[in-house]
């Protein structure tokens, strides 16, 4: 069936190819069904692309803006200023150890990391429709890059925190080493939700509408951002314990300010985060093969 290439000229090329042919990776394309495990090797090979996607989003966000990356600092500052103005008098009194604005800042930074990760990850596949329908790459990179972008915003916000701590006269203790753990729990929660939501949004654009609403309500369900949990009573405490974001936020603050950590809340949050991450990733992997057909 093959049509003859000129035998004389091509044979040497053929030989070379056959000689190196054994090194060439063989890709098998066939229908997969059911649950897929995550191909970490493939993800690792695509790490550069992940970096490029994050880099692209940073570049694009600040193109044609007057103050550029300063927005990453202004956003948490504005939230902190607003909350301090609204609640400083009421909520601040009981918490004399640190100024209320610092209390809110240490809650707001992880909260913005969480909301940034979830909302951007949820839209990541739909927003990259043009890529998804035109070229293959591990689809997981899209929500991952969205989370990566939020992490960079968070790190910029931490600069504000690093300036704020000495101003408030707070010196971090060795307990600050707990902060990355709390953030890991938070990120796992956000990524798990983001993965699930990004896959759902491909099929049901409803989530585009629902998500901002839920995120806004979520702030009231995570009062640890701006209130001391001691004020909620036993029932309220129990309810808040079930919120992994609350657990992560409270422990991030404890780590940074040297307050006693809430180990129980952190353990529960970690368990929930693990479940969310596994379920989110599994669902994403299950439906990603249909993205280009459905999107």
């Amino acid at each position: 069936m093959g049509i003859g290439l000129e035998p004389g000229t091509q044979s040497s090329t053929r030989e070379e190819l056959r000689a190196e042919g054994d090194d060439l990776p063989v890709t098998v394309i066939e229908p997969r069904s059911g649950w897929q495990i995550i191909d970490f090797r493939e993800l690792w090979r695509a790490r550069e692309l992940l970096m490029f996607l994050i880099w692209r989003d940073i570049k694009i966000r600040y193109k044609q803006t007057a103050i550029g990356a300063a927005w990453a600092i202004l956003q948490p500052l504005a939230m902190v200023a607003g909350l301090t103005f609204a609640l400083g008098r009421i909520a601040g009194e009981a918490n004399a150890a640190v100024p209320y604005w610092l209390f809110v800042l240490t809650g707001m930074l992880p909260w913005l990391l969480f909301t940034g990760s979830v909302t951007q990850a949820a839209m990541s596949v739909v927003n990259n429709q043009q890529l998804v329908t035109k070229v293959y790459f591990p689809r997981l990179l899209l929500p991952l890059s969205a989370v990566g972008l939020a992490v960079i915003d968070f790190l910029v916000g931490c600069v504000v925190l690093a300036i704020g701590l000495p101003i408030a006269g707070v010196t971090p203790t060795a307990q600050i080493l707990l902060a990355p753990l709390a953030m890991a729990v938070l990120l796992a929660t956000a990524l798990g939700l983001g993965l699930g939501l990004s896959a759902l949004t491909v099929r049901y654009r409803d989530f585009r509408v629902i998500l901002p609403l839920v995120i806004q309500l979520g702030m009231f369900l995570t009062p640890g951002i701006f209130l001391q949990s001691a004020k909620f009573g036993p029932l309220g405490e129990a309810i808040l314990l079930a919120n992994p974001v609350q657990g992560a936020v409270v422990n991030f603050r404890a780590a940074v300010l040297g307050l006693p950590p809430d180990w129980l809340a952190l353990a529960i949050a970690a368990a929930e985060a693990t479940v969310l991450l596994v379920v989110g990733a599994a669902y994403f992997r299950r439906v990603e093969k249909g993205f280009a057909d459905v999107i």
Partner: protein
Amino acid sequence: MTTAIRIHGLSKRYRLGSSVRAPHHTLAETVSYALRSAFRRRESTASAESDFWALSDVSFDVTPGEVVGIVGRNGAGKSTLLKVLSRIVEPTAGRIEVRGRMGSLLEVGTGFHPELSGRENIFLNGSILGMSRREIERKFDEIVAFSEVERFLDTPVKRYSSGMYVRLAFAVAAHLEPEILIVDEVLAVGDAQFQRKCLGKMRDVAGHGRTVLFVSHNMTAVKALCTRCVCLAGGKVIADADPDTAIRRHLADLTDASAATQDLRGHPRRKPGSDAIMTDVTLTDESGTATSLLRMGQGLGVRIAFDGGGRNLRPVLGIVVKDQYGAALFGNNNRVVPGFHYENISAGVITCSVPRVPLMPGGYMLDLYFGNDADDVDIIYDAIGFEVVADDVYGSGKIPPAACGPIWVPATWSLENAGVGDAPSHG
């Protein structure tokens, strides 16, 4: 014998009318969609008649170094095959084994971002296409030189002309150097000189023992580049042979009358917001026989049936003939034509007759504009395609040379003041 690509029993099914097709952008749409879909999805899963097999039981092997053309009329399954091969969509059944890195160029500028500069897009696009950062850095100068946009490297590509954009995009893609290159014809855009450069690059790739799959409506390019050609029709392989044989089979498929009629009611390329007034289009030759294959210099008839659903129209029809790269070649409409003036018409068939189609051999597409007096009410892009084949238009036993643009204008020639030479003439 090693194979570069082994395709076995490949099938791909699409569910038509599936509730998830249409995009939803507004809250109202979203909510009403959510309400409806709760019921609709249960229905559509069961109905087999809404299944559409874009590919059914496709099998063929490609040996390393082959340049295989893939031809077929629109909807034959070419794009689906490419999408499955490049792992964008998953097959419903069957298996493909691909040996080596595969680069697919389904559309130029995939992942290009308008806000980013040319330089930034080279890196982003290269990475998306599968190049490593070091690879891109190594080839950067070559890519820039090939694209001819040196002076604008730090300008956002949204300020590029479309030609510059395409050149840069192709330049990145052309330097991918995969073992297997999948090329869609959209690559061959740009001016003639750049097209030659692109084709040269493809020959280069093939010359280095790499495998190329080339999808095109341009039979001249297929003949020139390919060592073998696969023709698809209705999702099946109907020919797998040398380019000449496969192209003949393809042209025979095009002459099939069913290709000459297109239902327009659910046309995917209808401009959003149009009233679906045009119901179907039929192409004919000058004798009125339905066909989508014309010989050079033949007449073309475009018959459009329309139904305004009770509206009283002053029907105006415009057609635009475009080449396979989407460039408009010529158009006509009856608004300015004397003698075509009808009022209070609600339905009918309008025929546009072009007495002599001034086109060179190749594939062409038609855009249709249906107007009510001066308002465009129904616009369909790429409504239907047709093919022009070479013919002995001068009756000289010779075929006019290709490669001097898509338009053919007949001319007569004369010689005056001829000085006859002294040398005895031959024969």
